[in-house]
C-alpha cells in the first residue's frame, strides 16, 4: 500500500508537530508520523489535554496540539520509518504491516536519545537512563517509595529528579559530572534566558531535599539480581548509596539514522542545514535536536521554519530566524557547559559490557582499530539496537566514527521486507 502527500514529517515531538501544523495550515497535504502511541515526543510524553495545563511546557503542548488537530494534517502513530526504497519515498512498518509513503518534501524531526556510558553494573535491572526512568514513570511505572539516585550530565537530571520525586520516589542524590565553575558560567549566561533560569530553579525547588552535587560521577552499580547500591566519586573520595533505581544518562545525542540513510551531510554529530532548515539533500529538511541539542523552544521554531519552507512561504520562514538565533546560542552554551570530562572514559572495567545487545566487553573492544573492525570481530553494534546505545559510547570511549547505516534502520519482521501478506496477517 502506498500513500502520497505534499509533506511528510517524521517524528511528532515539538519540532515535527510545529512543522506539520504550519505546513497543513498553509494548505499542503501533510502526514505526520511517529513510532510512539501519541504525538508529543519525549518532552510531551504521556501528556493529555485535561491535565497538560499544570505540566512542564504544558501550555505549549496545548497550543500546538490544538493547531495540529484543527489543521488538515494526517497523523499516523505507531509507524516506524525503516527504509527509503527510492528518492521521495519512505517505507514504514507498524505491527507487522508495511506501507510506503511518498512525499514532495520530507521534514525529519527524529529528536535525540540519551548518551549512555558503560560502568561496572550498568546492565543490572534497576539501572536506567535518566530520561529512561522518566519515560517509564510516565508509562505507568509506580515510583512511590523507591530510593533513587540520579547521575550523569545535563539539565535533564534535575527535570527527572523533580518529576520522579514528585510522583513519590525518594531522591537520594543528584550528581552532575560537569564542574561547578563551568555550570556557574552557564548559569550566568542563562540571565539571557530568564525562562530557562526560572524553569531550572523550579525543578531545584521541587528537589530541594536531595543534594545536587556538581563535579561528581558514577563509579559502579552493584546488586545480586537487581540494583542494591551505587558508588560515586568527586575524583578524590568515593561514597555509596543504597538504592532501588539509578537514573543515569550523559546528555543527549541526535537520532541520525534516518538523515544518514537519506545521505544528509552531518558534521560533529549534527545535520548541517541552511537558513530554511534544508539539509544537503534536495527536499529533505531537518529540525530540532537533529541540528543541535537545544530543547523544545528551538525545535518549535525550526519546525515552523521548515513547515513554512515546505509550503513555499520563505518570507514567513525567514521572519522566525531572529528568534531562532537566540536558541541556537543556547544550544551551543548547553553543549559547552555539559561537555564530558575525560575521567568518564575510565569507568568501564575490562569485563564491563559495552555492547548490551551482544554482551561485548570493554576488554574485547579496547585496541580495535574502529567501529567496522569491532563489528567484524566481536559483533559489537550488530544486535537489535543497531548500535544506538553502544555507538555513542564507543565514539566517546575509543573515538570511533559510525561509518553509516543500512536499511532497515529499525528491526523489522522479515515478512514485511518480503511483502508477505499471509505471514503478516498471522503475525497480527
Amino acid at each position, binding site marked *: 500500500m502506498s500513500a502520497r502527500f505534499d509533506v511528510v514529517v517524521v517524528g511528532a515531538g515539538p519540532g515535527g508537530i510545529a512543522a506539520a501544523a504550519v505546513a497543513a495550515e498553509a494548505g499542503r497535504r501533510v502526514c505526520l508520523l511517529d*513510532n510512539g502511541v501519541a504525538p508529543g515526543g519525549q518532552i510531551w510524553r504521556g501528556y493529555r489535554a485535561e491535565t497538560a495545563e499544570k505540566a512542564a511546557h504544558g501550555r505549549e503542548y496545548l497550543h500546538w496540539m490544538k493547531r495540529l488537530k484543527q489543521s488538515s494534517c494526517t497523523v499516523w502513530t505507531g509507524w516506524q520509518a525503516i527504509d527509503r526504497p527510492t528518492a521521495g519515498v519512505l517505507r514504514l512498518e507498524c505491527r507487522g504491516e508495511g506501507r510506503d509513503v511518498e512525499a514532495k518534501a520530507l521534514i525529519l524531526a527524529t529528536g535525540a536519545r*540519551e548518551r*549512555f556510558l558503560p560502568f561496572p553494573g550498568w546492565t543490572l535491572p534497576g539501572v536506567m537512563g535518566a530520561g*529512561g526512568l522518566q519515560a517509564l514513570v510516565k508509562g505507568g511505572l509506580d515510583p512511590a517509595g523507591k530510593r533513587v539516585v540520579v547521575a550523569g550530565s545535563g539539565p535533564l537530571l534535575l527535570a527527572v529528579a523533580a518529576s520522579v520525586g514528585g510522583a513519590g520516589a525518594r531522591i537520594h542524590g543528584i550528581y552532575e559530572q560537569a564542574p561547578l565553575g563551568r555550570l556557574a558560567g552557564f548559569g550566568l549566561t542563562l540571565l539571557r534566558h530568564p525562562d530557562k533560569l526560572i524553569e531550572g530553579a523550579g525543578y531545584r525547588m521541587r528537589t530541594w531535599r536531595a543534594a545536587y552535587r556538581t563535579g561528581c560521577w558514577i563509579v559502579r552499580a552493584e546488586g545480586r539480581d537487581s540494583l542494591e547500591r551505587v558508588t560515586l566519586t568527586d575524583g578524590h573520595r568515593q561514597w555509596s548509596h543504597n538504592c532501588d533505581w539509578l537514573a543515569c544518562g550523559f546528555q543527549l545525542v541526535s537520532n541520525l539514522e534516518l538523515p544518514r540513510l537519506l545521505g544528509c551531510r552531518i558534521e560533529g554529530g549534527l545535520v548541517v542545514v541552511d537558513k530554511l532548515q534544508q539539509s544537503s539533500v534536495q527536499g529533505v529538511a531537518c529540525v530540532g535536536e537533529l541540528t543541535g541539542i537545544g530543547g523544545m523552544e528551538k525545535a518549535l521554531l525550526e519546525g515552523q521554519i521548515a513547515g513554512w519552507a515546505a509550503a513555499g512561504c520563505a518570507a514567513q520562514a525567514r521572519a522566525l530566524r531572529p528568534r531562532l538565533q537566540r536558541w541556537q546560542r543556547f544550544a551551543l552554551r548547553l553543549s559547552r557547559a555539559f561537555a564530558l570530562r575525560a575521567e568518564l572514559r575510565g569507568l568501564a572495567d575490562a569485563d564491563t559490557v559495552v555492547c548490551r545487545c551482544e554482551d561485548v566487553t570493554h576488554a574485547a573492544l579496547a585496541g580495535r582499530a574502529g567501529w567496522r573492525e569491532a563489528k567484524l570481530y566481536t559483533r559489537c553494534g550488530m544486535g537489535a539496537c543497531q548500535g544506538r546505545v553502544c555507538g555513542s559510547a564507543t565514539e566517546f570511549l575509543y573515538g570511533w566514527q559510525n561509518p553509516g547505516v543500512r536499511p532497515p534502520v529499525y528491526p523489522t519482521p522479515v515478512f514485511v521486507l518480503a511483502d508477505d501478506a499471509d505471514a503478516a496477517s498471522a503475525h497480527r
Partner: protein
Amino acid sequence: MFVTVNDKRVHVAEGTTVAAAVMMASEPSRISVSGERRAPFCGMGICMECCARVNGVEHRRSCQLPCEPGMVVVTK
C-alpha cells in the same frame, strides 16, 4: 485491568506500557546472550532491552506498547 507477565497477574492502570508492567511484576524483560537478567533501560524504544513476546508476537518493543486487558507477555 490485568495483564499476565510470565504467569504473574499484574494489575495496571489504563495507559500503562507493557515495559512498566514487566518492571512492576519484578520480572526480567529479557535474558542477555551471556545469561544476564535485563530490565527496561532507555524507556523510549531505542535500546531494545524491553523487547518481549506479547500475545504470541515476538520482539515487541514493550516500552512503546500500551497494555490491553488480558495481554499475555512472555519475557524468557
